[in-house]
């Protein structure tokens, strides 16, 4: 139950008192399935995210007062980010993200400042935070992850796993809408052969798959910084005669990217997961 305001001389009803007592001993819970901006009625209650897509709960300025608290937790795979709206200062332990089955308390120190206290173990303890987890659909030729990079992290790891390809293929990564400026060099070896083959091209081939499964392990350095982005990747064609490739490349522009797209070089993808992790800056 939200905080009530009583006036002098007012006769309280049993329902009002019981409602407040109930919230003390059994927090009022409101569950969200989309991005959300906190409202004054959330004070002293618990706000829950239940969505498979990464979502943001935003704190706007001049809504709350010093001493107010809001409890939050996340019960689904979409990572919850607690964000400060314009004019709000939000501090937190390492990061302001809440993974599945984690939570925390937002404590307001003024109308425009708050501190987020995680109450469960955060992945940030290990220096690596799951930012998003995208399940690949059926027979798709490309997958875009739109909120992958931000100013919170400089460097990222992207894992592609599970699922299948309709035919042996490779996955080509592009950042944002940029289709040129990519360079890459690679070394490849075929299972059962010690011969190393070198290649140089203008595509970021960062993963691939067969009708068995998909895989790719990509490290991106500075995609959201106003500098060139560096890519390093390792992936293996899941076949007894398949190739394994290690490669590294550069995108020579200073665009600050938030999204990436994986496109097949042939055929389609079905199932599997693309997970984006951020490396804590400190």
């Amino acid at each position, binding site marked *: 139950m939200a905080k009530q305001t009583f006036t002098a001389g007012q006769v309280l009803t049993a329902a009002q008192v019981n409602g407040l007592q109930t919230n003390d001993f059994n927090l009022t819970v409101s569950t969200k399935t989309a991005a959300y901006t906190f409202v004054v009625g959330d004070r002293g209650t618990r706000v829950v995210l239940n969505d*498979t*897509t990464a979502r943001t709960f935003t704190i706007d300025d001049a809504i709350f007062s010093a001493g107010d608290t809001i409890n939050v937790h996340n019960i689904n795979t979409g990572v919850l980010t607690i964000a400060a709206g314009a004019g709000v200062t939000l501090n937190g332990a390492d990061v302001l993200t809440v993974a599945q089955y984690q939570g925390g308390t937002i404590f307001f120190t003024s109308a425009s400042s708050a501190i987020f206290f995680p109450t469960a173990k955060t992945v940030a303890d290990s220096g690596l935070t799951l930012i998003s987890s*995208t*399940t*690949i*659909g*059926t*027979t*798709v*030729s*490309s*997958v*875009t*992850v*739109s*909120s992958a990079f931000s100013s919170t992290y400089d460097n990222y790891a992207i894992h592609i796993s599970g699922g299948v390809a309709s035919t042996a293929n*490779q996955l*080509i990564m592009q950042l944002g809408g940029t*289709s040129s400026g990519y360079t890459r060099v690679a070394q490849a070896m075929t299972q059962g052969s010690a011969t190393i*083959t070198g*290649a140089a*091209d*203008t*595509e970021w*081939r960062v993963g691939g798959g067969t009708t068995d499964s998909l895989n790719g392990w990509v490290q991106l350095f500075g995609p959201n910084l106003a500098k060139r982005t560096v890519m390093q990747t390792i992936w293996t064609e899941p076949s007894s005669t398949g190739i394994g490739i290690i490669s590294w490349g550069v995108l020579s522009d200073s665009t600050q990217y938030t999204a990436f797209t994986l*496109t*097949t*070089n*042939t055929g*389609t993808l079905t199932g599997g997961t693309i997970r984006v992790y951020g490396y804590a800056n400190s």
Partner: protein
Amino acid sequence: MTYKVQIDDTVRDATPAEAAAIDATHAASEAQAQAAADKAAAAASGRTKLAALGLTNDEINALLGA
């Protein structure tokens, strides 16, 4: 050709522009793969010709820096 694209959790048919971009990606990838294959074939052919001139494998490797 009809393609499906996925934006986060939403799968839909590609727009004409998106389909053209996928076609371009496929064509460029195929061209790069062909260029790599042609280069490998040229290298193999060169080795064969050097061997025909009487060079040993060690001499060819030393010459090519392999």
